[in-house]
């Protein structure tokens, strides 16, 4: 049930990203004659203070908001998995060094670290991706390391090692696939968090610069019009909600699959 709902919501977001832009006006096309127009057949989600179509901007924002989140999730997944596996399988000095680096990174709260990096490198989309990735890989690496270490101690891995299979080959056969699934489920569950963090940072003006449409920034621009045009806040809030729900449902589904 949950899995179907998760796939349904993801499909909805896919529709928003790929199909809706074909049917709506340019996201940045202004029409000052139709400022703050309420939702209608011409503008399903209404228009904003510059007369831009809100649905078109939401759809365009999918690419920025969700796309960035997926990019960050993919980077942190890959780095976390590789680093964690390496530490667990290699052990010894390699493990000690990697564990130390993970501990150090985790000593600074994730969002605070991201803020610090953006703060020093300056606002901007690329810097935001870098900051979120640097801040986010460590907890996945720690999870991957612990998961892989537990997997390494399982009887069937021990049997494989006792049968004379080498450490790396045995890890590739028995440890890697299960660890990848485990890390993938955690990474998927975190997409929602990343989407919210990115939107928050963009809201603060630390992400893409206007007029590029981004969900968090759309809320920031809507300040001052909320009582007259509530759709300006409701629309981004709802798509954020859908993204978070989709990520958490899909993450659960991946987790269940890993258990089976």
């Amino acid at each position: 049930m949950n899995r179907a709902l998760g796939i349904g919501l993801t499909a909805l977001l896919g529709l928003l990203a790929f199909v809706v832009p074909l049917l709506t006006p340019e996201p940045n096309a202004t029409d000052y004659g139709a400022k703050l127009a309420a939702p209608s057949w011409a503008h399903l989600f209404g228009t904003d203070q510059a007369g831009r179509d809100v649905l078109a901007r939401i759809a365009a924002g999918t690419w920025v908001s969700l796309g960035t989140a997926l990019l960050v999730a993919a980077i942190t997944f890959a780095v976390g998995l590789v680093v964690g596996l390496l530490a667990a399988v290699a052990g010894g000095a390699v493990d000690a060094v990697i564990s130390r680096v993970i501990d150090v990174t985790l000593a600074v709260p994730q969002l605070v670290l991201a803020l610090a990096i953006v703060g020093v490198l300056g606002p901007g989309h690329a810097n935001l991706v870098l900051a979120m990735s640097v801040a986010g890989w460590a907890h996945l690496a720690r999870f991957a390391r612990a998961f892989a270490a537990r997997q390494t101690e399982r009887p069937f891995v021990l049997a494989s090692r006792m049968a004379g299979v080498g450490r790396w080959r045995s890890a590739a056969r028995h440890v890697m696939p299960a660890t990848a699934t485990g890390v993938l489920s955690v990474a998927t569950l975190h997409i929602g968090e990343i989407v919210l963090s990115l939107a928050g940072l963009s809201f603060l003006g630390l992400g893409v610069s206007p007029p590029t449409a981004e969900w968090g920034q759309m809320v920031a621009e809507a300040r001052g019009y909320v009582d007259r045009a509530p759709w300006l806040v409701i629309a981004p809030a709802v798509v954020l909600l859908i993204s978070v729900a989709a990520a958490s449902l899909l993450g659960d589904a991946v987790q269940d699959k890993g258990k089976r």
Partner: protein
Amino acid sequence: MLTLFVGAVVVWSLQLVAPGDPARRVLGALGFANPSDDQIAATRHELGVDMPAPQRFLQWLLDAMTGGFGTSWRTGRPVTNELADRLPATLRLAAVALLFALVLAIPLALIAARWRGRAPDLGARAVMFLGAATPSFVVGTVVLELIVLRGGMGRVLADGSWGGAVLPAIPLALGAGAGWARVLRTSLVEVSDASFIQVSQARGATALRRLLVHAVPSALPALLAAIGLTVGSLLAGAAVVETVFTWPGIGRYLIEAIGARDVPVVQATVLLGVLGYVVVSTIVDGVTIAITGKAKR
């Protein structure tokens, strides 16, 4: 302590990778669009950026330990004074938000766990999801625009007082409280399958007694860990809410500093955030050990 030191190294080293010449930036902020080479050299010396990196770091660390964080590149005032002015407002906001979040999280989780799988649980979980998935800037914007501006309630210009902290605390508490409720509920549900809870039931204990006497103490460490994590990233949450409500705290100050690339301020604020995180984690660890008695389970 080690964490704090390592945090300091990380925070400080960031400026080494910062693009652009800080002297040029400072002069730019002061109004010199095309500074001469002499001016730049003089400013570099003033900022201390002409020294080799390790020496600069040691100098910064020594200053930081005695409470000095240099001067703001933007305003020219000592960073320490600026932070001291703003810290009480943020702490007030955090305290009120913490209280609200606990008041929201604990009853919600208990209701959900007590009637697990039934209507109250489903309702509570819906609230938890909405609370955790609605960004604080949306809640903040709506609260500000509808209650403060339109309803005329509260003060438009936040003054950093206890009374003024109530409204900004709402968005902060909603997200945190919903997350904590979720953690507490999961933990309560997990422990409710434990054999000792079933034994307690077989002895004749009521569902409420099983929940409060056995499940809650076992689930508490998970909640404490979640609270520790949230409070750790409070600075980030405060940044959003303080910006929305123009609350005179360090979160908004940090965002302004980032906008102006005011590196000493960013460093000092982030270090303060790390310090807060370390303090809170230490307290959480202490309380957890007190509850579990180092019980290995």
